[in-house]
């Protein structure tokens, strides 16, 4: 197997750009086992030598606080890559070396890529790479990842390190007398007992005890509880001493000394600043406008509206192509396959199901492309900066806004890309609360339901009601997020502190790779599960079907109709092509036969499993004013919310109802004594809040890393929606509001 090279570095240091530059299209994305952190791997090939390249998650440090840090550290320790390339942002050298120092403390062989040399130069920063290399004792290669400059030299030097085959002695920094003395004592004890030393260096273990590292502490307790408690005791006594004499903690002291060490290295002629370090650069001047108190929010509204428009308007064309392709495939197979269960399974179950999944693909591609532009350019961090104050109230994060907007915060989005958009959020609790509440937004598939009900019962208030629905969705989502954050996902908010990276022009290569890999992941993972579930849902709406006696009855009815007209008319209808002109009497017959077909479809649906569930639920759903027909439609809506209107049509014996033309269904509802404006409001609210469609549920499960949350979303949302619908219906009925 090819030797492994790991890429490590701070976020925004150009790590991913370098990875793309090294591996090109020879890369794939997976997950680290058991966690949702992305694992990117690829192959570097040049002149016959191959290297396996792993892009570690971007981190600022090697503590055990964030999942990314634990993943990066475990990979380095367990997989022991031959070389670690540490990408360091030359324009931000001091802070970036903080991570490099921690690699050296671990005794990990690193090769430093001094990246973004062009940016550093523009900012009047001069760096003596050779001097830095000799002071740190590791190779330092200047690079510009965007142009590929220095790539060859970097890989050459990495390859040399691989062959050198010498153990790198861990870097020893002085952390002050108190800590140093304690560390030496602890190190000796650790060595004597071989405490965790087959995995880690003894001094590093002692250092992590001093830093209160949760992962090492819990490992230590398991292996040797007696020594572990002695080490903890040693740390406690140093802590106590430091707190009383210097008013500081060991971990703070250690960090101070690391920065001090970095400063002392840089001071020895490594770096030369032409200007004041904290002077404003062009990027900061952009920020003066873009995050301005008045202009900032306006620009943000425009950008968000632009992203929305881009995602949902431009993806319409390819979505249309896919829809017509699957439509064509369905009708083509309908003519080839004999009528019956197999045809129904393939056309209504498999093709409609898979077509439904693939129909999302252009949407997801456009959304990820748009978000990648905002993310890579640095604007997304500004959005989080500007909106954090609002979202924090509800236990969320400034970055949550993108997911809400994409899901339908502006009516007409889609929760599937919305759930996936939460990936830009790095705070675990805030992220979970966001991805559980984005399905409350009004996605495009809920709109036909609203349109139908509004047209039927509130025709003159259309705009006002749509506005209320949008506001209601936001209010509901934010309040539920707050509720979740103080109950099931409670816990302090994750520290917000983050970098506002300088604005950068995104590279097309980066955007394309980013978009492609995420879209492909969706197709691969969601596709297989959804195919299975589509078949199950199809079966629920089809089986057990009408008993033969019933089918015969409908057939008899049809025959009677045909016999009532002259044989010539029936023949004309039978042999007429699809678009042929029919005589009046033939048209009349056709309409009557269609009515019988529709009645049969209604009877079939009622006797299906879904229909029986709908009927059985009627006892409960009465509380909210829903009859069995509505129930079936809502059960169908779990497959995809688009189905609600068409299923309602079948249940009212109207045959197939086109979601674009619901005139006859609207008339039927208006006349039906079961329906009133109050029922309509109840159903609108229920549709807004009940279980996400199953594609969303699968995405929620995948993104949260557990099926538990997918099931939670189905159960909790449905309970919430039902509660609200019952409340509306009962209060409304009691006061006689909005009834017929």
């Amino acid at each position, binding site marked *: 197997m090819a030797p492994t090279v790991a890429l490590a570095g701070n976020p925004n240091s150009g790590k991913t750009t370098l990875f793309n530059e090294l591996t090109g299209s020879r890369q794939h994305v997976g997950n680290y086992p058991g966690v949702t952190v992305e694992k990117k791997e690829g192959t570097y090939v040049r002149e016959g030598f191959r290297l396996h390249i792993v892009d570690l998650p971007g981190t600022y440090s090697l503590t055990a606080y964030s999942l990314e840090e634990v993943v990066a550290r475990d990979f380095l320790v367990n997989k022991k890559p031959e070389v670690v390339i540490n990408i360091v942002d030359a324009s931000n050298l*001091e802070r970036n070396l903080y991570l490099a120092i921690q690699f050296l403390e671990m005794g990990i062989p690193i090769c430093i890529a001094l990246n973004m040399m062009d940016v550093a130069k523009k*900012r009047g920063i001069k760096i003596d790479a050779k001097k830095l290399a000799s002071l740190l004792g590791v190779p330092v290669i200047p690079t510009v990842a965007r142009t590929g400059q220095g790539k060859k030299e970097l890989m050459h030097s990495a390859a040399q390190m691989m062959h050198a085959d010498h153990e790198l002695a861990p870097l020893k920094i002085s952390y002050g007398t108190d800590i140093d003395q304690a560390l030496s004592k602890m190190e000796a004890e650790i060595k004597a007992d071989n405490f965790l030393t087959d995995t880690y260096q003894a001094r590093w273990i002692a250092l992590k005890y001093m830093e209160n590292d949760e992962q090492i502490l819990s490992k230590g307790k398991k292996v040797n509880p007696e020594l572990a408690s002695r080490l903890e005791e040693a740390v406690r006594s140093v802590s106590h001493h430091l707190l009383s004499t210097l008013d500081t903690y060991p971990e703070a002291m250690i960090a101070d000394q690391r920065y001090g060490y970095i400063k002392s290295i840089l001071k020895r002629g490594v770096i030369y600043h032409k200007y004041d370090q904290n002077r404003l650069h062009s990027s900061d001047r952009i920020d003066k406008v873009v995050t301005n108190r008045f202009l900032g929010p306006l620009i943000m509204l425009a950008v968000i509206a632009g992203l929305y428009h881009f995602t949902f308007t431009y993806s319409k064309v390819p979505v249309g192509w896919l829809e017509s392709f699957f439509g064509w495939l369905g009708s083509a197979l309908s003519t080839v396959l004999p009528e019956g269960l197999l045809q129904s399974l393939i056309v209504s179950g498999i093709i409609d199901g898979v077509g439904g999944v693939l129909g999302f693909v252009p949407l997801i591609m456009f959304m990820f492309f748009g978000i990648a532009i905002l993310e890579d350019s640095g604007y997304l961090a500004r959005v989080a900066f500007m909106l*954090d104050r609002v979202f924090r109230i509800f236990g969320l994060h400034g970055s949550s806004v993108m997911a809400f907007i994409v899901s339908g915060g502006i009516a007409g989005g889609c929760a599937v890309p919305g759930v996936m958009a939460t990936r830009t959020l790095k705070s675990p609790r805030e992220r979970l609360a966001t991805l559980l509440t984005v399905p409350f937004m009004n996605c495009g598939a809920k709109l036909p339901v609203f349109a139908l009900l509004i047209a039927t019962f509130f025709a003159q208030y259309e705009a006002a009601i749509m506005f209320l629905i949008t506001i209601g969705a936001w209010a509901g989502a934010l309040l539920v997020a707050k509720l979740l954050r103080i109950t099931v996902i409670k816990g302090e908010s994750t*520290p917000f*502190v983050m970098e506002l990276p300088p604005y950068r022009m995104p590279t097309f290569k980066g955007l394309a790779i980013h978009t492609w890999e995420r879209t492909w992941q969706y197709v691969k993972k969601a596709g297989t599960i959804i195919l299975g579930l589509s078949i199950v849902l199809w079966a629920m709406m089809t089986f057990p079907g009408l008993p033969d006696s019933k089918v015969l009855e409908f057939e008899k009815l049809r025959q009677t109709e045909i016999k009532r007209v002259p044989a010539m008319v029936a023949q004309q209808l039978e042999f007429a092509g699809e678009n042929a002109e029919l005589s009046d009497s033939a048209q009349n017959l056709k309409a009557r036969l269609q009515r019988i077909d529709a009645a049969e479809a209604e009877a079939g649906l009622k006797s299906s499993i879904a229909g029986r569930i709908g009927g059985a639920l009627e006892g409960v759903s009465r509380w909210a004013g829903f009859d069995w027909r509505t129930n079936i439609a809502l059960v169908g809506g779990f497959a995809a919310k688009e189905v609600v209107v068409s299923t309602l049509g079948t249940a009212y014996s109207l045959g197939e109802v086109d979601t674009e033309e619901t005139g006859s269904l609207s008339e039927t509802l208006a006349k039906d004594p079961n329906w009133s404006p109050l029922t309509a409001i109840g159903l609108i609210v229920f549709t807004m809040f009940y279980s996400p469609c199953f594609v969303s549920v699968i995405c929620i499960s995948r993104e949260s890393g557990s099926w538990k949350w997918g099931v939670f979303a189905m159960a909790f949302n449905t309970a919430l929606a039902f509660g609200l619908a019952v409340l509306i219906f009962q209060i409304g009925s009691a006061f006689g509001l909005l009834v017929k």
Partner: protein
Amino acid sequence: MRINMRNMHDNQAGTIASIKVSGELGRRLRDMGLVPGTEIRIQGRAPLYDPVALRIRGATLTLRNNEADYIEVEVE
């Protein structure tokens, strides 16, 4: 004069005097380069006056006001 970072005005510069917080937040602040002795300058605030953005070691960081509360800054 020592003041709390929350009370600094835009464009004001100073040197971090102390950071009194342990646990996750303390560590995150240190990882981002906020340690005593570091020079900072307030770059600006979000439209709702929170979070705050500051220049440090040539980079821009942002933190919430309630996180800035733990940071004491020595100013002119």
